[in-house]
């Protein structure tokens, strides 16, 4: 039995988001909320406390009318790969409870709510604001708990939550593959809820290691970049943009800093 498992394939799931195509419509945000039982409150306008695993940011080029330009940047968890065993993703490095960890099969950064005790170190460590704290118990208006997805456990007050690249969909895909006697899953069988919903087809999801997958090619495009690349967090979410100011903007280069 040992042999079967040691041969088990490892993936490196990642995402490429085409900012030229992204219209900022927000379908990814809501697809995520609906898929992952994200709670909501009557007032969600305090964005520091509003839980949005996937959040679309708006960035402008800062020029006055009529030369203003706007770009929308969807931001899931970057599922940072870190570099090597001694420098994992920032959140994993600081978690005192081992509530967050790197999944070896998929490269996905996991978050176990029942293990988390809410110290929020990971939130402080994450440079992408991708982690959210449950300041309140999630509460669904009467009757609305009926739409909750049994594949994702609802969180409780006092724990941190974040995007899981819809890991349960990976499990779902594997289940199907097993039922059909396959060990490997196909590219289209495991897609995140946001990638599936995106009307613009701006989000591409797949195995970054697999040359057959669309993301493999896209991430090597000359227009590809990652947010805050210079921090060395080694994110698994890539972006594409033909606009220079967008590429510069997301890496927060200060004027005096060297640019390549």
């Amino acid at each position: 039995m040992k042999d079967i498992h040691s041969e088990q394939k490892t993936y490196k799931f990642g995402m490429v988001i085409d900012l030229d195509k992204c219209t900022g419509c927000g379908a990814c945000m809501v697809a995520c909320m609906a898929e992952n039982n994200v709670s909501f409150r009557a007032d969600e306008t305090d964005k520091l406390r509003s839980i949005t695993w996937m959040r679309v940011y708006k960035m402008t080029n800062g020029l006055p009318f009529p030369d203003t330009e706007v770009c929308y940047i969807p931001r899931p968890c970057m599922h940072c790969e870190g570099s090597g065993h001694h420098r994992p993703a920032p959140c994993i490095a600081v978690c005192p409870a081992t509530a967050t960890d790197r999944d070896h099969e998929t490269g996905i950064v996991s978050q176990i709510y029942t293990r988390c005790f809410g110290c929020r170190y990971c939130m402080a460590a994450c440079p992408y604001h991708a982690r959210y704290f449950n300041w309140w118990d999630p509460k669904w208006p009467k009757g609305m708990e009926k739409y909750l997805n049994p594949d994702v456990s609802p969180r409780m007050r006092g724990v941190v939550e974040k995007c899981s690249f819809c890991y349960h969909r990976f499990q779902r895909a594997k289940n199907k593959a097993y039922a059909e006697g396959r060990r490997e899953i196909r590219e289209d069988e495991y897609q995140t809820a946001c990638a599936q919903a995106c009307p613009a087809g701006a989000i591409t999801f797949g195995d970054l290691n697999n040359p057959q997958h669309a993301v493999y090619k896209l991430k090597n495009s000359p227009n590809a970049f990652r947010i805050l690349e210079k921090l060395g967090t080694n994110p698994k979410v890539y972006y594409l943009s033909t606009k220079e100011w967008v590429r510069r903007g997301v890496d927060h280069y200060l004027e005096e800093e060297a640019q390549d």
Partner: protein
Amino acid sequence: MSATEEKEQAVSGQAEQGKEGGEQAAGRAEIKPTSTLSRAKLLKFLVLPLLVFGAGFVVNLFIGWVIFPRLLYSEKDQPIDFSHKIHVEAVEEGCESCHFFGEDGTFSGVPGAEKCAECHEERIGIHPEEAKLVEEYILPGKEIPWHIYARQPNCVYFSHAAHIKMAKLECVTCHGPVGESIHVKRYQQNRITGYSRDIWGWRISGIKTNSWDRMKMDDCADCHKKSGARNDCFVCHK
């Protein structure tokens, strides 16, 4: 003389004796503690305390091993006294006849009344439990409120497909020889957690002799470790 004073005196007397004994050990070799005093002391300082200690020990062992489990679990009857044995013999595909996989690999778990109705649309035998099934559940179209022994907390993800279809485990490995049972066992529910006693195991010690005796995280993890399967958090948690 109060107990305390007596003790103090006794202690000081002993101490003096000790001193002298130390200094003149050779000359007083024949001197021994008076046997009556030592017996009383022995009783007082060793036997009695031990008895009291032992009483506390035994009482609490009893509480811990016998009373506690009785208090911890409440007992519930299953709605129908189901015989797995009869059914396994009657169906063709063993467990999977009723506990089946969907095309997408989802596992049906405990079958709904609809599944039962495939055979028991009306009575096909004379057993009173079957009559109960047909009259109380199938005819009125009600679901059977089974208590589920293997129910895990909501944070747990478990794939039957991965274990049965891929790793080729037998049902028995985790669920035990349920298929041979003639009666369903009583369902014991943990009053604190709300889950079945089967998760911790029926031995309150938690010691298991069979692979199906417990269903705790450690049991999963051990087997995963032994078989070389992954033990990453997301493998079993959601």
